[in-house]
């Protein structure tokens, strides 16, 4: 399938600082592509380059086969943005805000009115239509932003922390709408700090750190890439086997102790479980708790963004 976004060695420097350093990835049609990274990792700069707000200093990128530098206007016609901060025109009404975005994208009058009506209904903003954006709460403004972004009928939707700071209902509604639209073919580029949201929604995830892409894969595969971060958690009734005996178990890569809880990091949790049970039997120790934990997306994120991962 032809990628809708293709990024090749894209870079951006600010003076001597490399905000984005030769990143490359492809996004296929209909994907929800998560873009994760710590503050200052280069997420916003990447989004700004792809959306034509700033120019890259090196590398190329295409959006629907249009080069973002040489055919910027054509590439921008295919996308819409919902930034973290709902930057709507506060002195315009909900309706005027939506119409403005549609008109800037050259959406014909009949189509924009029809679409705006449908979206206002979908996002529960119908009765706020004539209200000034200034009078809306943060959650409603964010919904308005989504409405204004979707009225342009984009192929790609850039979402920057779309649910950050929102109440549970608004966040859930936005997530649900994005998922529904994605099922109808919309490609989504999602920047978020919310690991649960990323894991739940994204078909693939890229982790960016210090301007470089640390990894790109599906959430499940990302978790398996750090299989060494799986662990078995055990708590013994006193007396527990000796510390050095537990640490020297064959399949254990690393052991951590927190009060009476032992955490054994391993690539083979099954083997460790067996070894621990045997040891406990031999040493006449009683196991009061035993559980196996797989790495979460948060573990993956921390692994790829931590200083000492190597």
């Amino acid at each position: 399938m032809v990628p809708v976004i293709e990024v090749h060695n894209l870079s951006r420097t600010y003076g001597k600082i490399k905000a984005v350093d030769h990143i490359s990835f492809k996004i296929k049609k209909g994907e929800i592509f998560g873009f994760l990274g710590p503050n200052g990792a280069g997420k916003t700069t990447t989004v700004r380059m792809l959306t034509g707000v700033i120019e890259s200093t090196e590398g190329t990128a295409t959006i629907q086969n249009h080069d973002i530098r040489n055919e910027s206007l054509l590439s921008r016609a295919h996308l819409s943005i919902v930034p973290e901060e709902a930057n709507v025109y506060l002195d315009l009404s909900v309706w005027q805000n939506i119409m403005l975005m549609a008109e800037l994208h050259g959406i014909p009058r009949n189509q924009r009115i029809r679409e705006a009506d449908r979206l206002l209904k979908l996002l529960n903003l119908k009765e706020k239509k004539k209200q000034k954006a200034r009078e809306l709460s943060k959650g409603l403004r964010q919904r308005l932003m989504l409405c204004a972004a979707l009225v342009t009928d984009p192929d790609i939707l850039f979402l920057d922390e779309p649910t950050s700071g929102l109440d549970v209902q608004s966040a859930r509604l936005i997530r649900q709408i994005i998922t529904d639209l994605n099922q109808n073919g919309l490609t989504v580029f999602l920047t978020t700090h919310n690991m649960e949201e990323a894991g739940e929604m994204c078909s693939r995830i890229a982790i960016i750190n210090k301007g470089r892409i640390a990894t790109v894969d599906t959430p499940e595969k990302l978790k398996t890439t750090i299989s060494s971060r799986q662990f078995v958690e055990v708590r013994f009734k006193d007396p527990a086997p000796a510390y050095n005996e537990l640490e020297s178990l064959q399949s254990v890569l690393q052991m951590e102790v927190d009060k009476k809880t032992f955490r054994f990091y391993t690539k083979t949790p099954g083997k460790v479980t067996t070894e621990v049970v045997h040891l406990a039997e031999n040493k006449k120790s009683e196991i009061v708790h035993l559980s196996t934990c797989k790495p979460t997306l948060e573990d993956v994120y921390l692994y790829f963004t931590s200083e000492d991962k190597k």
Partner: protein
Amino acid sequence: MYTQKERAQTRSRQIHGSMVIVKKNILLYYLKPPVLIFGVLFPVFFFLAFKMGRTITAENIVPGMVAMALWFTASAIGPLVTPWERRARTYERLISTPVSLRAILAGDITSGLIFGTFLSVIPILLGLTLTNVSIHNPVLLTVGILLSGLCFASLGVLLAAPPASSPSNIMLLSNLVRLPLLFVSGIFLPIKQMPQWAQWISPISPLSYASAVIKSAFGQSTIFAPWLSVIMLILFSLIFFMASCKFHNRWRVKGL
């Protein structure tokens, strides 16, 4: 690269985009307090400052007022829009739409031009009804007002280029440019009667040519011939517009 068809479509989209920007600016900025203070009240106070205690004929007052109204009103929109939008963070979203920066700036200039042209009609009407002045060349007056409005609106947009997050900083800068030029442009006093140093500076002020062309339309003789003034206003407009595109583009990252 763009195909011929894409180029034609893009061009018409940009013109449409500019018009949408004009509509947005009219809805949002025409009644903002800084525009009303610097654009409408300033000319009135400056008129009073020039007029009080002096004998200036109606033939000088009316064209002077028209030129001064245009100077302040047309150049009042530009310095407000970009900093305001930068602060509200709507600027970033605007430049990510398929409307070029040039088209956005053209829209801002057109907003200033419309505002200036509309408000310059007031002193003309007052002059025609309250004094005995008459318009000698309506075509020249129309051309003069439109070109002056275009030129001053372009200057206003150029002054908004520096990356200031607060509109008041840009307003301050724009007044630093607008006010000194006001005194050397022969608005109420003929340039020949001004001090020598002011006569030297006068040709670098676009207001001098606006004042000259409007005075000519009201049948007064001026130091600059109408044709020269028209050419100079076109030149100034082009220079201001091109400089606006260059500097807005250069500083757009810093202003985000």
